[in-house]
């Protein structure tokens, strides 16, 4: 810009800058920031909002035999509510939703129960030890998820050495049920919860760890200095301050666990399916795209409620802080 020579004759205040300089300036100042912000938005729109709108549109359609296997009502507003009506009238669907939420909630509770002490232990360990422990948490991801589930199926199955060993231990030391021939673990709710807890544990540990790691250890010392024993310090200081980590971890486990398909399909009971199973069945067995879409949309709302609850708690605590 300094290179722009001012005409000697016109000493007026308006100097027209070359357009290229303006554009360059804009790029320097704002453009990068805006581009960086735009990337995640574009991602969300392309890979979440648009597909969701397509699913929403299909959920208001009617199944047909043909390509595509869906059509829409011929008169305005082209919307067919039948799928949603069926969803709320048949106990199968409601039961499946309830079952899913219940299983996910129980599994989340146990992941928290197991994950919290682990996260605390990792956060309190030092240097090399901490890195090793974190690596151990992440290490199972290096093996295929499906493979690990099949490994559990092998372990829990009635004829496995694990089952036989466990049966022997129970029969020998805790013969409450008399002599058991075997312990039925596969195809039970227990197996599903075990599978979910096992698979999702890292998602609980990692956010908890990052919350606990930032924790100032002198806070513990201060509480102890003021007369609190160790468990009181935990109750008064550590636990309340780790709530954001608990909530984040619980969300990361609960939300995908509710819609989980593979684990209940492979390890669960056939008679009380979880919603993921119902959705897949609608899609592939019934070949009803609209019904499957309606199930998916309803599932989304089941999951949106806890997220909104979380946001509400978050904003309330923020307000409390601003008082």
């Amino acid at each position: 810009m300094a290179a722009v020579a001012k005409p000697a004759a016109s000493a007026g205040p308006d100097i027209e800058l070359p357009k290229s300089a303006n554009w360059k300036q804009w790029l320097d100042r704002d453009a990068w920031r805006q581009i960086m912000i735009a990337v995640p938005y574009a991602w969300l729109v392309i890979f979440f909002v648009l597909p969701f709108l397509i699913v929403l549109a299909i959920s208001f359609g009617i199944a047909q035999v043909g390509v595509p296997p869906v059509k829409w009502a011929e008169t305005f507003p082209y919307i067919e509510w039948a799928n949603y009506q069926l969803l709320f009238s048949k106990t199968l669907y409601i039961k499946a939703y309830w079952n899913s939420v219940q299983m996910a909630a129980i599994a989340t509770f146990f992941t928290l129960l197991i994950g919290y002490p682990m996260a605390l232990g990792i956060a309190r360990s030092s240097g090399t030890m901490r890195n090793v422990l974190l690596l151990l948490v992440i290490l199972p991801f290096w093996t295929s998820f499906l493979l690990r589930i099949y490994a559990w199926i092998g372990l829990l199955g009635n004829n496995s050495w694990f089952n036989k060993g466990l049966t022997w231990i129970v029969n020998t030391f805790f013969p409450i049920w008399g002599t058991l021939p075997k312990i039925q673990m596969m195809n039970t709710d227990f197996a599903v919860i075990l599978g979910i807890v096992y698979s999702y544990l890292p998602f609980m540990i990692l956010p908890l760890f990052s919350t606990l790691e930032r924790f100032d250890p002198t806070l513990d010392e201060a509480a102890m200095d003021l007369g609190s024993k160790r468990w009181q310090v935990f109750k008064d200081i550590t636990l309340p301050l780790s709530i954001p980590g608990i909530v984040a971890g619980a969300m990361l486990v609960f939300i995908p666990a509710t819609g989980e398909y593979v684990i209940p399909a492979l390890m669960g009971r056939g008679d009380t399916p979880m919603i993921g199973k119902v959705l897949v069945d609608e899609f592939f067995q019934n070949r009803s795209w609209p019904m499957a879409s309606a199930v998916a949309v309803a599932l989304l709302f089941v999951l949106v409620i806890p997220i909104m609850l979380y946001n509400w708690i978050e904003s309330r605590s923020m307000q409390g802080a601003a008082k």
Partner: protein
Amino acid sequence: MPDDGGKPQSGPIWLDAAAKPFISIEGVTKRFGSFTAVDNVTLKVFKGELFALLGGSGCGKSTLLRMLAGFETPTEGKILIDGQDMAGIPPYERPVNMMFQSYALFPHMTVEKNIGYGLKHENMSDAERADRVKMLIDLVQLGQFAQRKPHQLSGGQRQRVALARALAKQPKLLLLDEPLGALDKKLREQTQFELMNIQDKVGITFIVVTHDQEEAMTLATRIAVMDKGVIRQTGTPTEIYEYPRTKFVADFIGSINQFEGEVKSSKKGFVTVSVPLTNTEMTVPHDRDLPEGSKVAVAVRPEKLTITRKAPAKGVNAVTGTVVDLGYFGKDSLYRIKLASGALVRVNHVNSKRAGEGERVAVWEDKVWLTFDPSSAILLAE
């Protein structure tokens, strides 16, 4: 090394040999692996004292404080508080509270809850508890902030919350770890005096850890200067400043000029030292007999040197050199004088007379004489 030092005067409790110390640290050593953080420290602190542990970072002062609070256990030696051996007593059962350097306020609790936290375990009614919290909030003048959370307070306010919280349980001993470290200069001065006022009011024993000699000098009744886990000298601020026992202490507290030399003769409480550096002899009072030829240093504080252009009379302690640096601060000026040997000497000249440009006692390149009264100098033997 520990030494109560100084000249005998009647009055202060620490000079009374029969007085029972309130805190008695007896031969305490703390090792972390092969590193010795605190090395055989023996120290007595009396009731109502505001005692400062002064030293650079890593000198062991904080470790000593943490051992008093119960967060560390001594490797050797023992600590007695009010006659009770503290070995095996966990922090939550000690009659000691600590104000942490980082303040360690509980971020999820309001000012009121923070201050009242320690009272939860105290056997008192809710009304009594509320009264005590109110009293403490008033003491540190935080009335209007009682419902705020720590992150909504300024540094000075947080510091006061931390102090009130530490005072809540009426500890017999209050430990303060760098209490003013995180405050800016103006706030420091203000809180320094506040802290002294509060100590006057509540009358408990304070032990302050600090690396700031100014803080220690203004706050403390007595100071222990620490270095490498060892106490180098214990004494009142005046004793530490005016009668340092070692080169380390003399250097650590304020600045000092040291002229190294050898004892030439010693008589009637005075020692004559020949200083090769300045090629002169200096006479300094001393209470110990030193053999001829022993290596010593004559140390003089910059403000105790007089700067003149005239050569002094014979027999006066004097050195001569050229002005190389001159800093004018208004109330005083700092000179740096280069001696013939190349050594630099710092001189603080109080501008007690008004002088315009060119009227100053000396300017750059001037050849000047520095004189000092024998009683102002310290003889450091080592």
